[in-house]
């Protein structure tokens, strides 16, 4: 048994004993990717987890309370007011763009 073959058998044996992968040519097996730590939990915990509860969620969960979203009410009132004055959305084909094309 020559010295070189002895060394290779020794390396193989030591790999088998210590649970390493025998890779004498240094092939890229992608093991370094498996060795990487998962960063998801740390990445996800950067911003403090403060969930803001919206009024809409409360009304959806407990409809019996009859809570009124004041800003939504004002918005709908404004819309109906505008519609009365003829400032509502134009009908299909009556908007600015479609009338421009016809000319």
């Amino acid at each position, binding site marked *: 048994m020559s010295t070189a073959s002895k060394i290779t058998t020794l390396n193989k044996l030591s790999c088998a004993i210590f649970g390493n992968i025998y890779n004498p040519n240094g092939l890229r097996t992608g093991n*370094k990717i498996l060795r990487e730590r998962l960063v998801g939990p740390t990445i996800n915990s950067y911003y403090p987890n403060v969930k803001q509860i919206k009024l809409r969620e409360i009304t959806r969960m407990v409809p019996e309370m009859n809570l009124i979203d004041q800003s939504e009410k004002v918005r709908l009132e404004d819309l109906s007011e505008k519609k009365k004055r003829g400032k509502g959305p134009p009908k299909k084909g009556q908007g600015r763009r479609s009338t421009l094309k016809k000319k």
Partner: protein
Amino acid sequence: MPRARIIRDMKARATVASSEVVRQAFRYLTHNTTLPAKVRAQAQLQLNAFPRDARPTAIHNRCLETGRGRGVLRAFRLCRFQFRLKALEGELPGVRKSTW
């Protein structure tokens, strides 16, 4: 309500965290030169098919107060000006203005 950029970054972070394990598996396949070339090419295609936010490089540390993306001190998660304001207010424990 947080700033729009912060919301965008939160979304990216959630995407990265949820798709990380599968992505790493595909990354392993592409980096393993002992596998057949066809398998590796398919894994590369799969990696490209992930949404843009699934890559860890899509996330960017932002200031918690202002949402600023530059000059953010990592330890305090604040941009430099907010850090100064809060430190002078004494809201950051252990931080003191030094003179010499």
